[in-house]
């Protein structure tokens, strides 16, 4: 076989039932069609997309991209993908740390993990050596797993694990990677638990072959120059200096901060709970994924991982808490138990609204612990609200809890939430980029005009980004134009930014096909009723009205048309054929 540049040309299949590891060499055309990361993982998920999440044959997919382990900026990420136990739809999480880099350096473009071990186990991959062995860490929190294994694994290896929440059957279960990074959303930890897989380690010593080193260097310089010019990334108030929490002040000033379970959009105590307040109190240092110069992750002076923006917001405004230390504890507890912080915060907010009882520090932390035990609370907001007879109190889309951007303050965000293949997720189209952060240019956040096409193009772009695999934040500054140049330099495959967009379209449509196979249609591409009937918190010259239902539906109809779906949001034969997905 001709040796590839960029890609390793090898996908490793591990069957935990038999203990067998086999190597597959996909046809180069598969790489051209799906790139890597999210795209390639989706290609491998498609034949199994309707399997139950505890079916041993359902694969857990871990994929790197063609740019991993090269000098292309922020390309150290990886994709973890499977069917979501929370939504029943597809779910891919882009995760940082060292995972993608080590996977590539070990010689693999991806891992396909199937089967179910008889006993709790761990996988250890070191270049060509693959070992599956029993583990006594089942039931332990993630921090205990990292404490125990980090010193025992080779230096620089990547380590991923689940916590007790996944083991106890919570579909909010996350996968923790390299202690500080989470594949948080959609309950992929529970898929891992269903395979009796507690942890896996990957270490590689190989190098990725780069076709044109000078071309890659030139592309890298262009991307670095653009990120240096970005206020959001490397500016004095940007992510590099303050972490993603730097967006906290902005969300509040724009009256988009979900407060009291989305009943209000302004939080009176925001000024004392912003990134500056955390910085003053915890003196965080910078941390980032392998190959990243932005370093948006932060570590407190006492060694704890600082909360991301969504966690800061949901564990304060959404649940009615004003204690910063409690946010730190909740974040630490969620990560230790292996719970997605966004879904956890939102589920607690739902409980608070239904019961009418405010949290104390003790009851809030107890609530998190209860979630990890896998009872009703641990099944997420939708299940909880339905069980308690108040389905209206679940702020979810497709069963996934919404993050910390109120859709009444950014209409593109409302459409993006509704049509996202993953459910209540801000990262598919990420219209916050232009509706709030003004990149690449500002759009009117209180208008649906043009948004349907913008959302479609952005979804395609981010599908390509997650497949390369790069960090979405970089695209507040750079574009696919510069990354296409890096891709061509690395792989030797001629590619323009628009051709990457076309591949992104195929990758995203493939997800719609899989979701349709699981029964999703237009009824699932919708928002909680509250956003159409109740206003947010107006003031400061900003009027936060309920979304107009008819205008929203019109925008969704436009989106379906532009995306090549039928009126019920379902894939069409013609478009499926056009994208060579039949």
């Amino acid at each position: 076989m001709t040796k590839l540049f960029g890609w390793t040309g090898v996908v490793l299949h591990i069957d935990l039932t038999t203990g067998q590891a086999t190597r597959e060499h996909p046809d180069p055309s598969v790489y051209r069609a799906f790139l890597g990361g999210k795209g390639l993982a989706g290609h491998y998920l498609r034949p199994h997309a309707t399997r139950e999440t505890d079916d041993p044959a359902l694969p857990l997919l871990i994929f790197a991209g063609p740019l991993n382990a090269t000098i292309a900026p922020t390309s150290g990420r990886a994709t973890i993908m499977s069917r979501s136990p929370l939504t029943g739809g597809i779910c891919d999480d882009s995760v940082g740390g060292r995972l993608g880099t080590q996977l590539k350096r070990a010689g693999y473009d991806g891992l396909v993990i199937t089967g179910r071990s008889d006993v709790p186990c761990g996988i250890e991959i070191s270049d060509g050596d693959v070992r599956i062995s029993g583990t006594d860490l089942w039931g332990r929190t993630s921090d205990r797993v990292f404490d125990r294994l980090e010193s025992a694994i080779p230096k620089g290896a990547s380590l991923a694990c689940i916590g007790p929440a996944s083991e106890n059957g919570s579909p909010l279960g996350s996968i923790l990677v390299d202690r500080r990074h989470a594949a948080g959303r959609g309950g992929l930890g529970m898929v891992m638990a269903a395979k009796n897989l507690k942890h896996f380690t990957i270490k590689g010593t190989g190098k990725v072959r780069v076709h044109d080193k000078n071309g890659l260097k030139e592309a890298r310089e262009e991307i670095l120059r653009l990120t240096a010019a970005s206020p959001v990334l490397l500016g004095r108030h940007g992510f590099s200096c303050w972490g993603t929490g730097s967006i906290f002040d902005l969300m509040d000033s724009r009256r988009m901060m979900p407060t009291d379970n989305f009943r209000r959009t302004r939080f009176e105590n925001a000024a004392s709970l912003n990134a500056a307040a955390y910085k003053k109190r915890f003196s965080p240092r910078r941390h980032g994924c392998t190959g990243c110069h932005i370093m948006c992750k932060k570590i407190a002076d006492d060694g704890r991982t600082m909360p991301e923006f969504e966690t800061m917001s949901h564990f304060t405004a959404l649940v009615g808490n004003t204690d910063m230390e409690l946010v730190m504890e909740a974040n630490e507890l969620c990560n230790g138990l292996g719970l997605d912080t966004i879904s956890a915060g939102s589920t607690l907010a739902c409980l608070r609204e239904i019961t009418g009882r405010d949290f104390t520090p003790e009851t809030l932390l107890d609530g998190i612990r209860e979630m990890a035990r896998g009872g009703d609370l641990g099944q997420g907001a939708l299940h909880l609200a339905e069980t308690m007879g108040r389905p209206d109190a679940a702020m979810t889309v497709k069963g996934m809890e919404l993050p910390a951007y109120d859709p009444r303050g950014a209409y593109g965000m409302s459409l993006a939430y509704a049509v996202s293949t993953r459910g209540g997720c801000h990262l598919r189209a990420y219209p916050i980029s232009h509706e709030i952060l003004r990149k690449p240019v500002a759009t009117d956040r209180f208008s649906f005009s043009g948004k349907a096409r913008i959302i479609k193009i952005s979804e395609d772009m981010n599908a390509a980004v997650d497949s390369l695999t790069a960090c979405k934040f970089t695209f507040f500054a750079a574009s696919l134009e510069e990354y296409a140049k890096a891709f061509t330099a690395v792989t030797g495959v001629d590619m323009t930014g628009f051709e990457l967009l076309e591949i992104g379209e195929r990758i995203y449509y493939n997800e719609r096909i899989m979701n349709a196979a699981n029964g999703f249609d237009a009824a699932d591409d919708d928002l909680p009723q509250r956003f159409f009937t109740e206003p947010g918190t107006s003031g400061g010259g900003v009027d936060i009205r309920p979304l107009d239902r008819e205008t929203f539906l019109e925008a969704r109809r436009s989106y379906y048309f532009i995306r090549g779906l039928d009126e019920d949001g379902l894939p069409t034969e013609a478009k499926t054929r056009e994208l060579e997905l039949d």
Partner: protein
Amino acid sequence: MKSLCEKYAAKLAAQRLADPGEPLIGGLDAELAWNREDPRTAELAKVFDLLSINSLVFSRPAEPYAAIIDFLASRHPETIRPQDTETRTFLHDIPVCREFTGEAVAAHLKKRKSVIIPGQGIASFGTVTPEQGFVFYSSTIFSCFVLFFSEYLARARAGTLDDEYREVFASVSAGLSDPCTEPPALAAGPLETEDQALAAMAEAGRAVVGYGLVDSFFGNISCRLNDVVHISQTGSSLDELEGCIDPCPMDGSATTGLTASSELSAHEDVYRRSDYRCILHGHPKFSVIMSMDCARIDCPNRGQCHIKCTECRTMDGVPIVPGEVGTGPTGLCNTLPPAMARTGAALVHGHGVFTAGATDFNEAFIRLLDIENRSRQRYFETVKAHE
């Protein structure tokens, strides 16, 4: 979408980047809409079929820009590579397309943000709004203007001018509008309240655009009130600043500057080092051209002057500093503040001019205008001395 298309068509004309009635701007959501009817839209519509975009800007530039781009396209048949900051950072280079067909235009726009079609005009696109296309179109004109005059001066210094260049240069130079010499009467300081500061900023921003001292939205403006810097937002049009100014406390107690101009750091450091209260930053063309003019042909840093220049260069006493946009290690945030604090004005190599005022924007504006007019005068004097 149609109203947005009309808005940016009008803006191109208002900024004298295209003749009124010339621009064609298409916007696509579910359906394609144009700012006006024209037989060429049938060909241009094909670009929407071939590229995943939502807007397309096409126009023949107004003179003298049309003559400039046609000349450059004849000298650089495939790609034009200006060396100014806007090109280096955002455009990278500008391809030349020889056919006015949807297919040919799309093939070039697949790779770059704008394309020159000699004799026809410039095409650019947006994936979010027509504003992107407007900005790329405007930046292309700016970059080509700077390249045309810079290259002429460099050739004059090197003694390599040819008759054709001389002829086009003479014609283009004759077509330049007369310099504005009378500054506007802006709100007088001291600016003591937030409302006064915001109104003064909006007024000064409109004046900077109105006097042609900045193109598209690449400029910024700030005003210090106590320990809060009010600064124009990133990507804001200086002639539309109402609602687009961020208050940024200098004590680091809030991160509302997340959407502020990428030059916030530089502005803040100027204020920390001096008693100035107002800063203007524009991209006047001849100032940019003169900032890049250097007689040291054998300098080891040639080609990387924008980050490595070690000379203490000035334009009529106004310091010229190296530095890239933003906050990187070679960012102008490191080089600009000391120079500004010393003299109240500085040019950044290939980028633009920053000027400061102690009480209001009048002083800053007068300096900005004066530097541009002196740069223009020095440019033609230098050319003449070498021709």
